[in-house]
């Protein structure tokens, strides 16, 4: 990894992991994106289902308004990126009005000319998206796209806080980055499947519950996952993880 890349990884990890979690961490991440990349705004949204969809945090009120437009109009790059699991990169919104007529009209009125939406995936399920906004047309550089994918990766933590209803003051903290790395472990995927059956929830919620339990108990996610796999632990069925 080159120096720039390493610095980006460190800065993004720090943004979500140091300080309160949940929407506060999401807001720090959005502001960090505008500092790291050549963009004018950023927003993070949660899209679990049509009823659980909305903007969680943004780097500015303008970005929040533009992002929220997508949920008001029911169309936009963010919604498409969650549906497809792929980044939706719109270099020039002026050429996208046939795809999202209502959103484009509103975004242009807010002075946004380019939108880059990255899906945020937890347990192979797209649970939200990170949107980057630019007030002039033009593509992201390869490096910026790499960094944006990284940012969408760390965005999993605040979204998991929200889904798992983790107290925002407890989440984040020193083990935030450890949790991020844990999310891709084999045993987490297996335990996720088990929790899906035991609690009758979807994959994103199951991961969030595993994480919430690890935070409450002050244990590593991996330990909790192995306890589930080895039948030493069944997470409580009711909404409260503690």
């Amino acid at each position, binding site marked *: 990894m080159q120096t720039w890349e390493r610095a980006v990884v460190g800065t993004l990890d720090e943004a979500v992991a140091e300080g309160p979690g949940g929407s506060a961490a999401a807001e720090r991440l959005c502001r960090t994106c505008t500092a790291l990349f050549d963009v004018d705004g950023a927003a993070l949204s949660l899209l679990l289902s049509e009823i659980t969809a909305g903007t969680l945090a943004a780097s500015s009120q303008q970005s929040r308004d533009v992002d929220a437009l997508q949920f008001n109009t029911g169309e936009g790059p963010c919604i498409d990126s969650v549906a497809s699991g792929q980044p939706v990169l719109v270099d020039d919104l002026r050429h996208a009005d046939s795809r999202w007529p209502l959103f484009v009209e509103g975004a242009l009125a807010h002075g946004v000319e380019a939108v880059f939406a990255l899906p945020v995936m937890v347990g192979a399920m797209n649970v939200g998206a990170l949107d980057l906004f630019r007030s002039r047309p033009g593509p992201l550089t390869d490096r910026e796209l790499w960094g944006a994918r990284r940012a969408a990766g760390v965005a999993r933590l605040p979204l998991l806080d929200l889904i798992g209803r983790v107290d925002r003051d407890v989440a984040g903290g020193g083990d935030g980055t450890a949790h991020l790395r844990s999310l891709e472990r084999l045993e987490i995927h297996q335990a*996720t*499947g088990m929790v899906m*059956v035991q609690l009758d929830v979807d994959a994103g919620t199951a991961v969030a519950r595993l994480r919430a339990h690890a935070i409450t108990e002050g244990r590593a996610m991996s330990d909790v996952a192995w306890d589930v796999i080895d039948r030493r632990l069944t997470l409580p069925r009711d909404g409260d993880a503690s």
Partner: protein
Amino acid sequence: MSSRRERSIVEQFRVLNEFVLPDADPAELPLRLVLACAELLEGTICGLLLADLTGDLHVQAVSQERRAWVEAFELQRDQGPCSDSHATGDRVVAADLAAEVTRWPVFAPTALDLGIRAAHSVPLRLNGRSYGALGLLRAEPGRATDDDLQLAAAFAHVTLIALLAHRTAEDQDVLTHQLQQALLSRIVIEQAKGILAAAHDLEMTQAFRVLRRYARDHNESLADVARGLATGRYRPEQVLRHVETAAPHELSPAPD
């Protein structure tokens, strides 16, 4: 090289090569590779790590899913022979981890605690680009022979070709996208194993065999059946009932 071993090598190559065919299911490849390696390299636990779009490694398969072995490969996503192989594109040989604590301050002591003494790895490389690494762990200290490493590298190469074969384009982005699909398939397959395990009190290896049997008998890919279970399109009962009736031996607790 004994003729029995030779026959075994030829057989394993044949099995791995079949995955290049268009109707083969690439999701089974990582496990096939590590099992083939473990069978031929006696006393060795094998694990495959693949890189995602941002260059991070992910464990795709371990020849024995015991916690200690899984842990020793998970650690190598950040540090150890696999991580080094992926970064440099070179083979890494560590005959005695007790002498590698300075080199890998986290991996070496943890691996030693887990009962591992030697760790080697070969990169998964194509056209000068690295896609991951195949790792070999042993409980006894000792160098891997050149023959063994050569064999592991050849298996890894065939696997990479087969993983990428399901698209023909030369475009790097397409190749990377292909691997991304493999990574995603792996996640849902592991989840589906968990779903079956929790619903019917199965071990993970039994759960995998149930999944595979159902997929084969219904002409579906492993990933599609797994996704069906994860999204609720398939009920675990329906999958298990089929296997109980059609192939009850898949439910025996014997290892794969």
